[in-house]
């Protein structure tokens, strides 16, 4: 404890509060949010454009390089943003010993969903 008092207030603050990780979390949430504006609008526009399309037309659309890229970027940004948002909700409402397991399950779930979606897109591209 005596050693700790020798640290300057600035250095002590480095590992605490928003100086620890809050600002980084806030910033990543904004960056993914900005990315999701064009990505989600592209997705909605594409879905509406393909509302009357059959299976082969939807597959042909997903196989276009631009669509494949946009869909994978959407999945990454979407589940990154989802994980950041759900983390805040768990931080705010879960105060018991369940908090850490809840955070782990939530993060692994988001990772698994992004991976599953990317896998599905790549499978469509490779198999045709």
């Amino acid at each position, binding site marked *: 404890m005596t050693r700790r008092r020798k640290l300057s207030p600035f250095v002590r603050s480095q590992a605490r509060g928003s100086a620890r990780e809050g600002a980084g979390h806030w910033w990543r949430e*904004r960056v993914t*949010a*900005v990315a999701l*504006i064009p990505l*989600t609008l592209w997705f*909605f526009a594409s*879905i*509406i*454009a393909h*509302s*009357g399309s059959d*299976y*082969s037309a*939807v*597959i042909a659309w*997903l196989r276009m390089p631009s669509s494949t890229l946009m*869909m994978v970027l959407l*999945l990454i940004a*979407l*589940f990154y943003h*989802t994980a950041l*948002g*759900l983390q805040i*909700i768990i931080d705010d409402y879960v105060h018991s010993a369940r908090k850490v397991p809840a955070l782990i399950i939530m993060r692994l779930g988001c990772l698994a*969903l992004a991976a*599953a*979606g990317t*896998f*599905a*897109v790549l*499978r*469509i591209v490779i*198999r045709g």
Partner: protein
Amino acid sequence: MRGSTQVKYGPKSPNIQIYRPQLTSVLSIANRISGVVTSVGAVGLVLWLLAAAAGPDTYAFALWLLSFLLGQIGLLIFTFFFFLHLCGGIRHLIWDAVYGFDLSTIYASGWVVVAASVVLTGAAWIVFAVS
């Protein structure tokens, strides 16, 4: 009340039980709720992609499930809450850029978010139904 648990612990901030709901507070919690609802919709997006990857039969089955009233209502709810989260999120990004903080602008932008979410949901569904 002296000595009772009420006095000992006191009410917890921000006393939402006794606070009159306002557009600002309702939209604040709506942004969080719409984020959670959109997360559920994101799971649906992955299931839709997996169904498409599995083949035409599985894809047709997925669309068949969505064709029921419950599926259509679910899609409508996801669409509305997505647009609510999108518009509310853009409002937050504008605040992050330190714009629109006086009270009249906060209320105006709040009603713009509500109106834009309803209009965008309606427009998306009308265009979807027509095409």
